[in-house]
């Protein structure tokens, strides 16, 4: 660690080095991870700018022409005004626009559920680490129960009970995912609570609450951020799976999973593009997030530090 710091300060002695700056340097040292970060940035940008870069609003039924259904990639629309570069689906939606909008939903669901689950799980984990043996045991057995349950089965049960919709999908994912954060946050907090700076903070007369939130929590964040990155990918996959199974987002507002599902029935009639292009988009997104998450894990892992 100290050797590393010396090296960075040699390369740019005048810069003020924060810990995050060093993390950034280490992250960009890997080319695949840098490329993945770039791809991810493009995907996020596309999702954010969907209304401006799409050629139609795929959720607006007025803009969709059924006569354009199942056109091959590169075809002109029936009135000849635009080109469907990635083809159209069974309802005549432009696939490029549908993918960009679908990414928006997938990313929102993935990031939203990861952030909410992260906050809840981290607080539960800290509570378990601090509140004493009985609370700890109760919370951790609940976490064990959740982790031992097949994810997809539980998601299906919750969604079957609550009904479809973007909000319910996010809620389901949060209910499943918080346990991952809780377990990691608890373990990390237990380790950090034994560190000298906690003893020193107590010696300064700070309250336990202050120490837990102000001192222990920031030191627990790196592994939790890695989990969050990987959980975004997991949430997107799970949402796609649920939508594919018909229990996710409504059919009028397709996410990537639902687009794949919709195209599935045309696969055998050689109309591959309806499933293929959303599939590629999903694959690229998941891969980019996982590569970024893996690199984050390496950067934050003190044992792997060069």
């Amino acid at each position, binding site marked *: 660690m100290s050797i590393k*710091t010396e090296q960075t300060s040699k390369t740019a002695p005048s810069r003020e080095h*924060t810990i995050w700056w060093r993390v950034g340097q280490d992250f960009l040292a890997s080319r695949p991870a840098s490329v993945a970060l770039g791809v991810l940035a493009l995907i996020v940008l596309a999702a954010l700018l969907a209304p401006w870069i799409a050629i139609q609003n795929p959720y607006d039924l007025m803009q969709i022409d059924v006569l354009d259904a199942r056109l091959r990639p590169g075809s002109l629309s029936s009135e000849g005004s635009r080109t469907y570069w990635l083809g159209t689906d069974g309802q005549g939606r432009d696939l490029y626009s549908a993918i960009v909008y679908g990414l928006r939903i997938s990313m929102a669901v993935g990031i939203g559920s990861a952030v909410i689950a992260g906050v809840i799980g981290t607080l539960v984990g800290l509570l378990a680490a601090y509140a004493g043996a009985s609370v700890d045991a109760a919370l951790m057995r609940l976490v064990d129960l959740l982790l031992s349950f097949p994810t997809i089965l539980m998601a299906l049960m919750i969604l079957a009970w609550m009904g479809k919709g973007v909000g319910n999908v996010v809620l389901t994912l949060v209910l499943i995912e918080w346990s991952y954060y809780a377990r990691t946050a608890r373990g990390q907090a237990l380790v950090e609570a034994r560190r000298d*700076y906690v003893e020193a903070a*107590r010696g*300064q007369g*700070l309250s336990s609450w202050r120490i837990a939130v*102000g001192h222990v929590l920031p030191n627990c964040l790196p592994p939790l951020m890695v989990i969050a990155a990987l959980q975004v990918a997991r949430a997107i996959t799970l949402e796609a799976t649920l939508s594919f199974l018909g229990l996710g987002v409504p059919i009028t507002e397709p996410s990537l999973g639902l687009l794949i599902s919709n195209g599935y029935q045309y696969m055998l009639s050689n109309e591959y593009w309806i499933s293929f292009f959303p599939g590629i988009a999903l694959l690229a997104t998941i891969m980019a997030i996982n590569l970024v998450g893996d690199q984050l894990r390496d950067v934050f892992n003190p044992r792997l530090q060069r």
Partner: protein
Amino acid sequence: MTVFSHEPYLLEVRDLCTGFDTREGELRAVEGVSLTLGRGKVLGIVGESGSGKSVTGFSIMGLIDPPGRITSGQVLFKGLDLTQLPPPALRALRGDRITMIFQDPSGTLNPVLRVDVQMTEAVHAHRKVSKEQARKLASDALSLMGISSPDERLRAYPHQLSGGMRQRVAIAIAMLHGPDLIIADEPTTALDVSIQAQILSEVQKLVHERGTSLIWISHDLSVVAGLADDIAVMYAGRIVEYGPVDDVLDRPQHPYTQGLIGSLPSANRRGQRLRQIPGMAPSFLKMPSGCAFAPRCGRAQATCSEQMPQLAPLCDQPSHSVRCFYPGAAA
């Protein structure tokens, strides 16, 4: 309160016992320690690792965590028994009137928080002042510790500072509120000798200027010799010799103290073999009956392994006491 209102001592520890519950039974890490410390005085507690010197310091601070606990005894600070104080009241004293400096400065500063965040937090823990005032106090405390360009140091993260600088920051945090008592647990052990000397002299200067009392816990007799007014030598959880530093070092009465002094390298015994104390410190779980030092002691007699000697004042020097049946100058 009325009983102790004329108390001349800032700190008086009476028969302090601290134990840890383990699977093998209770482990008595500190056994019947009594100390007194006047205002502006420096007390050195010396002993080898596991002698209970750090546990004594932590007990005074009220920082003993389960499975450990103070089983009996009193810690009177300005006449107030800290062992009976409710946690919030104790917390109000901690970091304000009584502060602590720890051994390893790289561990005691939070690695992810900037120095200014940690210092202003320490200010706000005991004083209601604005952010700017807290920052000013922090910066003043740093310059007091001989840190040049304190504002630049405030913006740094702990890992950007050297070991000596980190310990200065830690001491500055301990000095922030002008405490009455500082407990320093081997604060210079992790530093190299030249930095150690600088920090020692700065601490000494500050303590003298401000009339702060100091408990300096160390295994290094030579550090304590130059700093302390009184010295307590601990062995296996008990004080074996206690008195004014010059008296204890000039005519040590306990064979363990003599052994410690004899094992210091010194210029006027150049070329001679360093004397070492034979044997090992006993395990807390397998304490010998009688005097804990008897198995390693050259002058032990049958009584020594049967009874525990009392800490008794010397006839000619009542402020100097020793726990030995056969006290006296080295043979």
